[in-house]
């Protein structure tokens, strides 16, 4: 469905020293610099798949999405989306995709969202019947039925985002690009949008690429994550397998009935947290049993749990580029 091979994108910009002196200097002599926003990214997405596209700010996520949706030309590499070259911007291609950017809006500010929906209906040539059906269905799912005729400027950020998503789906695109759709929203709105996207993807088998800085979004929606950092791919695989790549470690939380000295904890493994009530140890997966036995035999243990390293933490380590794709 989506195929990206050795994608590269460079931007040129000008260097400017601070202050008026710098500005005057720039009038006569501008030093141009090249920034590699995307260096060499390859991945592919199957039809109906929903992947999380992750990376720290400035990693090149939005740039990649813009190239995939045909807004930007790449500097190099090969891309195919649903059999089309995006930046040729064929109308047939545009009918199959949709992009929602959390920080941009496409609705007419002074008019109710329903007007903008109707405009999209006209632009995409959606027939009356399916238009009615989709508005009824999606507005119910998103819980915005009562708000369709309210001026967009009077909506809250969360409500507006729901409308943006609805507007993007009126022509039933095969592929949906979501660039931080939950940015700045409260927990309830985030949850609602997440649930909606889950149901929508299951029901309509739409291929979705989503970027978000909220791990809850990614964990709830995606099995697979593609992580980039500084324009390069650092991970492509199952979210659940991320820990494996990072050295297969587990967290062992132990509660004790009396306080244990930190020195004593250190004899069992790496100590991540310690308090009067217990400690959290980071232990290699294959040693969990052994360490647990030792702890149980040597200390007065009330309770214990073994958990995976939180995904957020694994991702943070990819962001810091401690590890690169094996």
């Amino acid at each position: 469905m989506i195929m990206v091979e050795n994608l590269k994108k460079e931007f040129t910009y000008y260097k400017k020293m601070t202050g008026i002196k710098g500005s005057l200097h720039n009038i006569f002599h501008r030093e141009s610099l090249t920034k590699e926003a995307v260096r060499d990214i390859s991945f592919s997405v199957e039809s109906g798949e929903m992947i999380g596209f992750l990376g720290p700010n400035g990693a090149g996520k939005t740039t990649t999405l813009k190239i995939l949706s045909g807004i930007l030309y790449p500097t190099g590499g090969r891309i195919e989306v649903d059999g089309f070259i995006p930046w040729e911007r064929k109308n047939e291609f545009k009918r199959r995709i949709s992009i929602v950017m959390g920080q941009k809006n496409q609705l007419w500010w002074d008019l109710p969202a329903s007007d903008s929906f109707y405009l999209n209906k006209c632009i995409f040539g959606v027939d009356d019947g399916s238009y009615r059906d989709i508005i009824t269905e999606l507005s119910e799912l998103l819980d915005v039925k009562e708000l369709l005729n309210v001026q967009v400027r009077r909506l809250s950020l969360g409500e507006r985002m729901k409308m943006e998503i609805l507007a993007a789906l009126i022509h039933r695109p095969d592929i949906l690009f979501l660039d931080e759709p939950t940015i700045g929203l409260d927990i309830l709105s985030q949850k609602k949008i997440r649930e909606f996207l889950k149901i929508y993807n299951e029901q309509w088998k739409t291929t979705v690429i989503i970027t978000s800085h909220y791990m809850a979004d990614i964990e709830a929606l995606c099995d697979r994550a593609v992580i980039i950092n500084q324009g390069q791919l650092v991970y492509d695989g199952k979210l659940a397998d991320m820990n494996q790549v990072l050295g297969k470690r587990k967290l062992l939380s132990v509660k004790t009935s009396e306080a244990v000295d930190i020195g004593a904890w250190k004899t069992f493994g790496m100590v991540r947290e310690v308090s009067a009530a217990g400690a959290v140890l980071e232990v290699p997966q294959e040693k969990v049993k052994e360490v647990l036995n030792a702890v149980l035999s040597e200390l007065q243990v009330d309770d214990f749990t073994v958990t995976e390293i939180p995904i957020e933490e694994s991702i943070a380590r990819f962001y810091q580029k401690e590890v690169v794709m094996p």
Partner: protein
Amino acid sequence: MSSYRCVFLMGVEQALEYRVSFFLSMLSAVFPIIIQTTMWNYLYRHSDAAAVFGYQQGEILLYTLLATIVSQLVSTGFEGEMNSDIKMGGLNKYLVRPVGYKGYRFFRFLGQKIPRVMVVAPVMAVIIGMAFWQGMPVSAGRVLAFLVSLGLGLILNFSIFYCIGLLGFWLTDVDKLFGTISIVLTVVSGGVFPLDIFGGVVETLVNLLPFGYTTQFPVNIVNGRFGWERMGVGFVFQIGWIFIFVCLGKYMWRHGVKRYAAVGG
């Protein structure tokens, strides 16, 4: 419904959305009329000659009143929006949808004009009626030709300002210039007073440049300053300039979008 018709109707709706702004725009159509009338009446009363700058009092009044209205009718205002579309990435939403940006802008512009036209049309009819009653050479044929040239003037002014808006692809802070450009162009279009009062070189320039064809030309048709032959030449110029600006706009768009797609929005 075709997408442009939909954009057009939404433009009408948008212009009517704010009642206060709508009524104020009605006022702003009437105010200049009062100012112009008072000013020219005063000038002629204190002048010995029957004609100042070659215009009779009635002629100059007819000219300035109609020119004020025409220049309001053809005036744009979307160039600032275009500039922010380009600068802030709002253009993205047009690039990913199967709709032409220029068509979108044009029909939205037309739609937003409609309420203004409804207010101004009766005023214009009254002015022209009074001119006829005063014995000025207004005729049905001239009014018809005037309406055609007014439509063309609207298209021409749209095309000029569309190109100005597209400058945003190359110049980052062009929006601060828009106010100035718009005022200067109103004056050089003959929107404040007839430019042929300067005679000679200025008059020739006005006849050659595109701007006079947005305002001065339509008004001079109805007030009878032109013979039919000169009117024909004027139409050729008006249509020629539309053609040139449409081509220029196409060229600028093609290169601008390429540039936009290279540097990002």
